[in-house]
């Protein structure tokens, strides 16, 4: 079944910025821009939103050396690369957490629902991937929107056995168009991570 075993992961380490966001790391002039710095590249359709948050360790301290990536559908529920997808929206964001307070931030559009393979739809969500020193395999999760009516019928949220953990996947509306998605690596409020 597995002809070749997958290459093992190793931690991104403390110097991930050198390779993934070199301009952020002060290594200028090698690449013109850091990959994923802009998700909106023109007159993208849909509602502009900010998704921000922090990544907390098991002591409640925000990680200041993590890198967070986002991958999402556009305002019509299409992923970049699909026919008819919004050409002014990349769907991919990458952010080095703030070196002082650990905040990550994506200026993006609110995604629409996307299909579930066995029929029906998945509620609007943004795939989130977290790497850092001390994280041996990148952590995969999703940010849903707490105010989205589609959440009630989402097949992923619906299969979470421990219902009190559903809220760990819900980005909280802070202002008109700002949502906070805090990630907890450990503890009572540990974020639900995916093996998908």
């Amino acid at each position, binding site marked *: 079944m597995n002809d070749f075993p997958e290459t093992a992961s190793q931690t991104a380490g403390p110097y991930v910025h050198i390779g993934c966001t070199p301009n952020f790391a002060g290594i200028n002039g090698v690449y013109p821009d850091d990959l994923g710095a802009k998700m909106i590249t023109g007159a993208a359709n849909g509602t502009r939103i900010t998704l921000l948050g922090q990544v907390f360790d098991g002591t409640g301290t925000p990680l200041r050396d993590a890198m967070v990536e986002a*991958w999402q559908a556009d305002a019509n529920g299409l992923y970049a690369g699909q026919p008819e997808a919004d050409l002014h929206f990349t769907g991919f964001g990458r952010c080095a957490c703030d070196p002082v307070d650990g905040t990550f931030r994506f200026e993006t559009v609110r995604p629409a629902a996307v299909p579930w*393979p066995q029929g029906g739809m998945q509620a609007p969500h943004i795939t989130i991937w977290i790497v850092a020193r001390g994280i041996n395999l990148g952590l995969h999760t999703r940010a849903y929107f707490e105010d989205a009516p589609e959440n009630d019928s989402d097949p992923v949220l619906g299969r979470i056995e421990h219902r009190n953990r559903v809220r760990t996947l819900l980005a909280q509306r802070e202002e008109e168009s700002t949502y906070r998605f805090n990630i907890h690596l450990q503890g009572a409020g540990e974020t639900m991570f995916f093996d998908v």
Partner: protein
Amino acid sequence: MPDKTNNTPPKGGYAARLPANHPVALYPPYRTSVKRSPQAAPLSFPSTISEETGPVFGHSMLGPLDGDLLRNFGPQDQTAIGPRIIVHGRVQDQFGRPVAGALLEVWQANAGGRYRHVKEGYIAPLDPNFGGCGRVITDADGRYELRTVKPGPYPWPNGPNDWRPAHIHFSVFGAGFAQRLITQMYFEGDPLIPLCPIVRTINDAAAVARLIAPLDKPHTLPMDALAYRFDITLRGRRQTLFENRMEGL
């Protein structure tokens, strides 16, 4: 038709990731993992369009020196200090299909074991001609090639006297976000490999062995650069739509 040209990806879901191929999340000798490792079981479900799609990076985004760490940082007439090497290989999926168009981003310490980073505290000097980042996109056969210097080993704050073996970090994007991977490549013959707590987060000796790039003598450039070969295997999609693993919590 030769199999090699049949690169149309199948439409089934991604095969499940096998934990045995990967490090454990919590490995106390790697001290930072203690408070950064999730403790609850992850949620499993068959991959969906959200994981089966991913960002597409075209060759047009690359500059001519992006894959040449010897020259992509310093002044035009100078190259980085240290042993000149070629790192090359092939990216394939777990079923042996080449992964064309995969973006590989690499970063590493210089030949003295020093990173160009504000958090770096090692006494070894910076190399004014070495930034430490590079990137390349695989060709139609999944092949890639980089030029750089062999990085040095270095001490790091973990236990009282821990040293990292020489390594190059790789970040890999395949066709689907489910294939996303960050790993580290080590060098054949480095005695620090089995001593390293980060390497030892992987329990399977064969999985560790696959991270160790052998010297590739036939690929060396005479009077110029040694060559090391590092092949990468990503997750793959199954042939049929519903041939997925058991759905579980």
